[in-house]
């Protein structure tokens, strides 16, 4: 057996190129004769589209074309984009046309595209395209949208309510009729974005000699994108190659197939020249999908000892103008509420509402941060009302490890019963509390109060369904050079996919990690693929890498045994060589074996030898892998300014067996930063006409290096019994409970003033307003 890589803190193979300016992002790909694109976008949240006059734009030197909906090829000219993840509760197919026809539904919706010699000229010309609109009433808030007489987000639809559904089990009516204590809360979580630092990007080039259309896109899902594009262009899949090269962050919004990914290839085909479009940041604020934006009204029923009896309520999900990914965020949210707790009865009625805002699709966490916020804030309320410690309230209600596997009583969004495969939630919380020195916090808090400082502590627990199927694939092939080619439909936007899959394959095959040549995010390299979302790649692609690696290992051993004249059990694979002490020669290299297996005319393969030293595995998990964790935030609040400083942040995290702790820690830390943004800063604001108000990084604040502490991270590993590697997903857990823990900590810090918070982001203005409303300043100045 070769070197042990699984579980090792291996530094990343991706790093040297990215550190030296040799990364290859879409805008770094240089093609001869490339033209540049700029989109003409709706300035209205809702309007009828009356006409487009391209003549002023076409008169500008360097402009090659202005393309509107009518200039597109069928079927994309006339048919709306396909919807992924259908759900029977959705009442109307609600996806956009790649270029608007007749009506526009949100500010920024693409109406036409200008193709020119340079981006500078394209932008000049886009401004010169004259578009006539007839403004229609717009709705920008889902609470308004469900009122009688509200403006219709889509003129042709009779209602803004696109879907209603209920997730429930147990007899909530009976529970709530008899419960000793019932506490009700209203929660809201902001709308925010993924805000990858690389914006979206598309480059398309058609080779007339082979009729191959190659599309480079900064996407998380090139295989799905290729399929969508093939449908929209009416081309065969095999005549399209989609490549996601280096991608500068994903976080969910880049999992979506966007109109620009269809229009740019169509333009390249029409003009017979490569065409490139690089989104600018303002476009990203207007047009890249967003998330959260849910209003919850929920109640918890508990007994006198704070044991949960039931949870029930209603949730409004603002889906924006379309549902490209169906209703999975509100669905996931509804299924995530029970979390790590025994809840005998549960009912959540969800309403998905159309507004004239950019669509919502998953952003890191995908509905879970909202659900965890609701559940954890309810438990904080229980602790406050019953005068119990917050950790103790949670302790009383945890599902115990011996109850695993635990059937919650709901169906998850993968269509399978929600059954937690494994986990030790009490141990997770105890680990985090110990590391956070929770027991001594009240002393710290008293000492701080004596100095006039307000510090507080908050807890957030969660269970997260990760590793969703249907599958991901990995091909492993030994090459005549002796190196090992690996191809996968999994993609890489910073998760270290290349490194982790290389660790798994190298260990199985017996080669050096550096001798793995990996192709990621290229539909030309592997037939089937799904891509990066739902923290799914370690489970799906990781196990495929294991299975493909095992198969190639067996092939190597079998062939080497024949060539060296020894038993298979005498063969050891290490460092790219098959070694047998007793053989007719001491070793044979992988390259020589590959040449044999891949065919030398005139030389027969041994009987039973498959061609190629190659195997493709598509691992298909049968259900989600449930990871879990506890976050503890300790904060200081400046009561005079409302400023919040996170003093200390502790995470105990169970993502199953850890492939590479360096990378998992990085995922957790980065996820927490996103959660800090959700809790304190990020807020995509719209006015009453659904006009976006925050379209730059000066208006929409991302967490900075001075805002995010270095987390203390503990791994509580419970191996997933359902997949061979024992892994669970790690990409989103850092974000999910962060807002719950941080807002809980702020409320705790300000407990002398008895102020309560039920929303994110909690900006300084809101904190000061709450303190003012609670007459805090009178108390402070009197003291």
């Amino acid at each position, binding site marked *: 057996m070769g070197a042990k890589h699984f579980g090792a803190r291996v530094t990343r193979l*991706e790093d040297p190129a990215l550190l030296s300016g040799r990364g290859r992002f879409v805008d770094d790909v240089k093609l001869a004769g490339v033209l540049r694109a700029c989109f003409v976008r709706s300035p209205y949240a809702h309007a009828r589209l009356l006409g487009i006059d391209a003549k002023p734009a076409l008169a500008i030197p360097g402009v090659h074309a202005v393309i509107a909906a009518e200039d597109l090829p069928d079927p994309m000219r006339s048919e709306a984009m396909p919807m992924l993840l259908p759900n029977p509760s959705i009442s109307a197919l609600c996806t956009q046309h790649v270029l608007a026809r007749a009506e526009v539904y949100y500010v920024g919706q693409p109406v036409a595209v200008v193709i020119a010699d340079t981006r500078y000229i394209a932008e000049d010309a886009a401004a010169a395209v004259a578009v006539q609109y007839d403004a229609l009433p717009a709705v920008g808030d889902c609470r308004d949208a469900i009122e009688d007489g509200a403006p219709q987000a889509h003129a042709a639809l009779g209602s803004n309510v696109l879907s209603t559904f209920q997730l429930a089990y147990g007899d909530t009516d009976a529970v709530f009729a008899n419960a000793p204590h019932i506490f009700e809360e209203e929660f809201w979580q902001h709308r925010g974005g*993924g805000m990858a*630092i690389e914006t979206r990007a598309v480059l398309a080039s058609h080779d007339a000699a082979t009729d191959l259309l190659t599309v480079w896109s900064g996407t998380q899902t090139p295989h799905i994108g290729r399929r969508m594009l093939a449908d929209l262009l009416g081309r065969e899949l095999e005549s399209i190659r989609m490549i996601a090269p280096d991608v500068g*962050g994903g976080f969910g919004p880049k999992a979506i197939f966007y109109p620009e990914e269809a229009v740019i290839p169509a333009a390249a085909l029409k003009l017979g020249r490569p065409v490139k479009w690089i989104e600018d940041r303002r476009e990203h604020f207007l047009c890249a999908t967003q998330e959260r934006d849910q209003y919850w009204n929920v109640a918890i029923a508990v007994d006198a000892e704070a044991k949960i009896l039931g949870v029930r309520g209603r949730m409004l999900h603002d889906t924006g103008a379309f549902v490209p990914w169906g209703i999975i965020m509100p669905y996931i949210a509804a299924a995530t509420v029970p979390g790590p707790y025994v809840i005998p009865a549960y009912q959540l009625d969800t309403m998905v509402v159309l507004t004239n805002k950019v669509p919502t699709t998953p952003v890191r966490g995908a509905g879970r941060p909202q659900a965890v916020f609701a559940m954890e804030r309810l438990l904080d309320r229980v602790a406050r009302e019953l005068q119990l410690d917050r950790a103790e309230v949670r302790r009383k209600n945890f599902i115990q490890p011996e109850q695993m596997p635990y059937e919650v009583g709901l169906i998850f969004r993968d269509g399978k019963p929600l059954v937690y495969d494994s986990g030790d939630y009490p141990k997770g919380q105890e680990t985090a509390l110990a590391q956070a020195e929770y027991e001594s916090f009240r002393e710290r808090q008293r000492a701080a109060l004596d100095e006039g400082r307000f510090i507080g502590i908050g807890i957030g627990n969660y269970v997260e369904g990760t590793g969703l199927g249907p599958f991901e694939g990995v091909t492993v092939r030994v090459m005549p050079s002796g190196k090992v080619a690996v191809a996968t439909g999994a993609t890489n936007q910073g998760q270290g996919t290349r490194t982790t899959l290389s660790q798994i394959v190298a260990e199985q095959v017996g080669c050096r990690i550096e001798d793995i040549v990996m192709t990621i995010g290229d539909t030309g390299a592997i037939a089937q693929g799904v891509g990066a979302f739902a923290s799914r790649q370690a489970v799906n692609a990781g196990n495929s890498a294991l299975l493909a690696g095992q198969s190639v290992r067996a092939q190597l051993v079998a062939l080497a045994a024949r060539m060296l004249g020894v038993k298979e059990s005498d063969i050891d694979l290490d460092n790219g060589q098959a070694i047998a002490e007793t053989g007719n020669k001491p070793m044979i290299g992988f390259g020589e074996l590959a040449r044999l297996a891949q065919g030398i005319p005139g030389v027969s393969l041994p009987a039973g030898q498959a061609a190629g030293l190659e195997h493709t595995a598509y691992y298909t998990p049968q259900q989600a892998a449930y990871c879990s964790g506890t976050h503890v935030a300790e904060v200081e609040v400046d009561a005079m300014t409302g400023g919040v400083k996170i003093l200390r942040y502790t995470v105990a995290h169970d993502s199953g067996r850890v492939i590479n702790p*360096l990378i998992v820690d*990085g995922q957790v830390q980065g996820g927490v930063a996103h959660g800090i943004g959700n809790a304190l800063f990020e807020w995509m604001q719209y006015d009453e006409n659904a006009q976006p108000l925050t379209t730059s990084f000066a208006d929409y604040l991302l967490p900075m290096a001075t805002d995010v502490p270095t987390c203390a991270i503990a791994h509580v590993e419970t191996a997933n019994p359902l997949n061979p590697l024992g892994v669970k997903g790690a990409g989103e857990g850092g974000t999910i409970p962060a807002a719950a823990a941080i807002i809980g900590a702020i409320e705790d810090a300000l407990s002398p003033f008895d102020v309560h918070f039920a929303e994110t982001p909690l900006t300084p203005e809101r904190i000061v307003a709450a303190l003012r409303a609670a007459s805090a300043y009178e108390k402070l100045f009197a003291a």
Partner: protein
Amino acid sequence: MSKQPTRVTVNGKAHARIVEARLTLADFLRHELGLTGTHLGCEHGVCGACTVLVDGQSTRACLMFAVQANGREVTTVEGLTPDGGLSVLQQAFVDNHGLQCGFCTPGMLVTLTELLRENPAPSEDEVREALSGNLCRCTGYAGIVKAALDAAQRLRDAAEG
């Protein structure tokens, strides 16, 4: 559009071009000179991904026109990279997981190069303050801060050694 002759020394190499007055320095570096290590994340001067050194000072290449760099010396991430290897700072990024997607990384490296030149023994707070003009969405900054402190230590050790 009016065009102007522009002479810029980039990473020690002199370049003469006739460019549009409105061409940004970032687009000049990327598309005229093919130095695509300098990235654009916001084009309004906040994210810091496009940070380069102009006459040794960290500068947003998206907020400066190429013609304004006439007669000046520009250093990009390519210029910070030794032939056939990585610098001490770059290696510290590898060892401390200072990058994930790598898109903001060139700007981070340029900013930290300036910091470590001016302050060879920065505190963690000073590192964070210096980095506050560079946004990273992936890492939560912990690995970057650690890499900067690690690199500072290694550079001091080497200077003393």
